[in-house]
């Protein structure tokens, strides 16, 4: 098992955002988290990447307890994240943004840059434009590309399709599949439950800080209660 979240509780001040969430991600999988607004999906990802501290519970990565490891060290271990709202560095160019992803690396980066530019030709055209002046969809590409530049074993993607046109959404999902087939494990948070579930090996449904259901993606697509709540009821 690559990533194992064991019964974690996370608080914002006194408010409990996660109330005993457990989940597992195996090497090579695409795993999705779906759930309503405020269910705790972003918090779960932030806790895995080390931006939020745990109140209790454990996070194991490659069998090693990383619950107390600071975020920047988890990056080196192989956890990459494209944050919600993208978090692109506005005053850095596209290329500088991507190179920030390789901040801890000292090896040759040309191959990795080429790979990201191959996945997102749009970024290659705009490599010297400021991140802050890129469109929403383009910023999403920067965020994903930048996370890939950390050479992650598992990449955490927080709503990569947010605010994108349908054409671009389809494109992003096929890129996620491509990233996965090149050997990166993916933990995906999505509002677009339909497409996320189609793509996922397994998925978890979150409700107010708890996992209420977990099953292979295809099964959840046909689950009546899931269809009702997250897939528009048909």
């Amino acid at each position, binding site marked *: 098992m690559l990533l194992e979240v064991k019964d974690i509780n996370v608080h914002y001040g006194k408010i409990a955002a996660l109330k005993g969430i457990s989940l597992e991600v195996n090497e090579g999988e695409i795993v999705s988290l779906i759930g309503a607004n405020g269910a705790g999906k972003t918090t779960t990802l932030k806790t895995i990447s080390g931006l939020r*501290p745990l*109140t209790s519970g454990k996070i194991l990565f490659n069998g090693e307890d990383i619950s107390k490891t600071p975020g*920047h060290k988890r990056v080196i271990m192989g956890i990459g994240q494209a944050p919600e709202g993208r978090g692109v560095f506005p005053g850095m160019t596209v290329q500088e943004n991507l190179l920030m992803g390789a901040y801890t690396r000292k090896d040759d980066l040309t191959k990795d840059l080429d790979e990201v530019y191959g996945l997102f030709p749009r970024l290659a055209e705009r490599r010297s434009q400021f991140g802050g002046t890129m469109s929403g969809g383009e910023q999403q590409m920067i965020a994903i590309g930048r996370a890939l530049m950390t050479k992650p074993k598992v990449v955490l993607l927080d709503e990569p399709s947010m605010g994108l046109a349908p054409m671009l959404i389809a494109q992003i999902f096929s890129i996620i599949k491509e990233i996965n087939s090149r050997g990166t494990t993916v933990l995906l948070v999505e509002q677009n439950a339909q497409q996320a579930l189609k793509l996922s090996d397994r998925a978890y449904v979150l409700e107010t800080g708890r996992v209420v259901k977990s099953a292979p993606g295809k099964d959840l697509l046909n689950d009546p209660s899931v269809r009702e709540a997250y897939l528009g009821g048909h």
Partner: protein
Amino acid sequence: MKGDEVTSEETTPRRNPFSAIGHGIDVMRDWWEHAKVWQRYLVYIGAVVFALILPAPAIGSFMSPGADWTSVLVYPIGTYILLAVGLNVVVGQAGLLDLGFVAFFAIGGYNVAYFGTQYHWNYWATVVMGIAMAAVSGVILGAPTLRLRGDYLAIVTLGFGEIVRITANNADVIGGARGITNVPHPPPIFGTKFLLDPAPYYYLMIVAIALVIIFSVRLQKSRVGRAWAAIREDEDAAELMGVPTFKFKLLAFAIGAMIGGLAGGVYAGKAVFIEPNTFPFILSATILAAVVLGGSGNLPGVILGAFLIGWLPERFRDFAEYRILIFGGVLVLMMALRPEGLLPSRRRKAELREGTGGMGAMGAEVAGPTTEASAEVNQ
């Protein structure tokens, strides 16, 4: 990898008296960004020559008809520049709002005064001591507070500045409210004695400013500078890139503090006499105003800002009581018309347009109930 080919600068539809000047400044900055190495060196040499002839009486009679121009150049102008370059590391580069910067200036000054008068240490040794003590206090202040964000950090640093001043006011070992008198001057350099003539102090100040500028530019271009830029623009994203954000914020505090301490040491070497009221809160605010007015994060801008903030009130002494009012009015006007500062960097403009950057992430996050666990996030 600079923003070289970006030409799609938005033309702001605003029309105001400053826009023409602003445009001229932008053109100059763009020229500078593309300038060849030899062109840049010419500008550096020009700047040094300019600094050397600046105290000339011909210039002084216009710049400072009321007071001795060279003295004005040492304090407030030179001292403000030194302080502003130091504060710029914290505010402009790392994006942390520090409202108590004067504390480090005080620590540098008091070290020179105390060890010079009590133990008769060599002046330079006292300056080094002041810098070291300032760095240590920067770390002591930063370690618990840099986990806070934005406005919380501002309040705590403001408190720190006051604590240092009030402590000095009440500590009899360092003279209490009376302060320390007969602070020794620097020993002669190459036969130049440091006595009442302000000129040697001016040249000492120029050397200090030049060293600090070189140091600051080197830092900005290094991995450290890149990490600071990332922290300033989005702290969480920086951590996700593998930047040890807490360590780098602490480093910014320590380096800013050292420059503040150096400024205090140089100042005390000329002042003969220092007291707690030399280091009021308003000085922290003034230096911050200089940084923001000039163009936070961009050294030429910060230096220009500090120069103007130091010089304008001296120049318009004739207006007596009204001068601070006019000065404040001019500041408000300038910031309304050119909020990114007089000489912003391109990058800073892009940050401001995005609505982040500015001065630190104001979106404070509430830590979890387990302080221990929350303490480890940023380590």
